[in-house]
């Protein structure tokens, strides 16, 4: 990995978060067209991906690793129920531990190491000063329950989906940086149920098609897609739980501060089949970029204006952009002289 983890920056209160030039360069700009449309934009997550890109490895570790792990710790201390694992998901959690440790130790050997002696595993995470030996599959030999243990060592939210009756069920996860959804409420829901609130997409048959595709993913063939929204300030925890704390920030955007306050928030979602449990791991890796940083790329700036300008009302509302959307579009106009 070329980007070494920076000292801890904050995603709340002081918002000291910044992106280096390299982080900006590898940012996943999610708009392939000038107009945004829902689609089943799933593609194979062929590994290894392009060197240095966010797609190179199964789990991407970047300069924000220490910051994000510190942030996760704060959220879970405040509310431990932001991490849930139903009893029948124990095996899936161990599958997740296997996949994470096996790939991290190979992809980032400077930071992680894994030794296996039959079922006795020794794991070291040098970034977080973690060193543990445990019996694979035996949750009593881990310092924390398996979901929490591994979830606190990877960037991004993780959900484990149980596959039953040709459907997927949200039965385990650690969700501390969601784009406005609650694991505590949604736990146990089926695929179309937890997507219930999403407007427009159901009618287009998007979820039926996506579900058919996802239930057929075999072992070793992960897939990925990008999801996006906007966030005010570099706030990772935009959960419904804490909405009373950050909701008002949507009302603080002015034409003068758009560049520093409005962030494009992109999720790299990866789905990977867990071999022993047949569950699907759903990792949601979140990337944040301020408008000021985004517009340094002239193509992105221009497209951003066009996408925002043509966004349907239902999406503006659903994504919570209503209060500042017009101000944003006005500000972006300067980067798109033709429009």
């Amino acid at each position: 990995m070329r980007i070494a983890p920076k000292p801890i920056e904050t995603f709340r209160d002081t918002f000291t978060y910044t992106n280096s030039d390299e982080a900006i360069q590898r940012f996943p700009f999610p708009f392939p067209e000038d107009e945004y449309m829902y689609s089943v934009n799933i593609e194979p997550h062929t590994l290894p991906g392009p060197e240095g890109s966010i797609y190179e490895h199964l789990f991407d570790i970047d300069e924000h690793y220490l910051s994000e792990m510190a942030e996760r710790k704060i959220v879970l201390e405040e509310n431990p129920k932001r991490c849930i694992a139903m009893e029948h998901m124990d095996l899936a959690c161990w599958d997740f531990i296997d996949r994470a440790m096996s790939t991290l130790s190979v992809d980032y050997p400077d930071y992680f190491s894994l030794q296996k002696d039959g079922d006795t595993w020794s794991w070291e995470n040098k970034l977080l000063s973690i060193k543990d030996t445990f019996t694979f599959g035996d949750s009593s030999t881990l310092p924390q329950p398996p979901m929490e243990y591994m979830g606190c060592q990877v960037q991004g939210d993780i959900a484990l989906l149980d596959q039953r009756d040709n459907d997927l069920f949200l039965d385990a996860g650690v969700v501390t940086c969601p784009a406005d959804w609650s694991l505590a409420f949604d736990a146990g829901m089926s695929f179309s149920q937890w997507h219930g609130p999403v407007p427009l997409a159901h009618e287009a048959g998007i979820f039926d098609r996506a579900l058919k595709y996802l239930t057929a993913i075999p072992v070793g063939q992960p897939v990925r897609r990008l999801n996006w929204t906007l966030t005010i300030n570099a706030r990772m925890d935009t959960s419904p739980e804490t909405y009373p704390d950050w909701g008002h920030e949507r009302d603080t955007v002015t034409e003068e501060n758009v560049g520093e306050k409005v962030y494009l928030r992109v999720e790299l979602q990866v789905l990977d089949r867990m071999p022993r449990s047949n569950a699907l791991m759903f990792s949601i890796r979140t990337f944040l970029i301020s408008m000021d940083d985004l517009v340094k790329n002239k193509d992105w700036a221009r497209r951003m204006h066009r996408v925002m300008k043509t966004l349907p009302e239902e999406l503006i509302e659903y994504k919570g952009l209503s209060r500042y959307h017009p101000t944003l579009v006005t500000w972006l106009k300067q980067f798109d002289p033709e429009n």
Partner: protein
Amino acid sequence: MSQTAITVKVSNIRKVAPTIREFTLTPVDGDFFPFSPGSHVVVEMPAEGKKIRNAYSLLSDPRDPQSYRIAVRLQPESRGGSIYMHEKVQLGDELIITPPSNLFAPDWRAKKHLFFAGGVGITPFMSYIPEMLRQNADFELYYMYRSTQTGAYINELKEMLSNRLHAYDSAVSNRADIAKIMAECPQGTHIYICGPESLIETILKIGEKTGWPKSHIHYEAFAAPKPGKPFVAELKKSGKTVYVSEDQSLLEALEANDVEIPNLCRGGVCGQCMSTVIDGEVEHRDNFLSAEEKASNCCIMPCVSRSKTGRLNLDI
């Protein structure tokens, strides 16, 4: 979705029943992934200048990453896949398989599991059993076979399961009273069936007549595509015209012409290969489409279905 192939080596072949051969496959580099009970792999067989791809259940212990085992019943009237496996594959040969997929996983919420295996249908349950034993699950196996042809693993099972195994050898006219077995099941029992259509039909009918919840009866039919009249498929999107021979499935003909479509079970049950029909009458042989869908002729499952008229025009 095309699947990345895994190259494997045949490290053991043994006869496990008069018509059944077991193949042990080992990875060519590294270890295999563990798999979930009930998984299958698709084996690619380069037979006689055409590629046959058949799905076979993994019967080895799911936690063993060092080898996978499959068992193939010789079916002389088939399109040649089992013949190829029995007659052409030698110790040390390399084969190509897909990564494991699972369309027949146990429902771990069940209070009790009942397995009904017919003949070579014992295979997926061989991968269930080690995991069931580890989880201390309540289960019983009803194994129906004809010892002159099938009956693989019967001794191994007797030893592993003792009175959890109920064996019925039709060669000595020993038959199971399925209705009685089903009537005595406690609340929360799930039934799993793997075997010939007739066994599945029998159990489903009894279930229907006696008010069993449908969702608690799971089955995997071993329906490899059967031969049929040759026909031509015209493909709108790719602009190709594909000739489907007697002993080739439409899916195989497409693949032979470098047209890859999503597929998983290759036996007409999973729905992955469903394609839109523009013109031509379909001869449906699948277990996925509804009666209405079949009557409307809107779609076809290329892995098993064919054409009634000599021609099909497909949106592929």
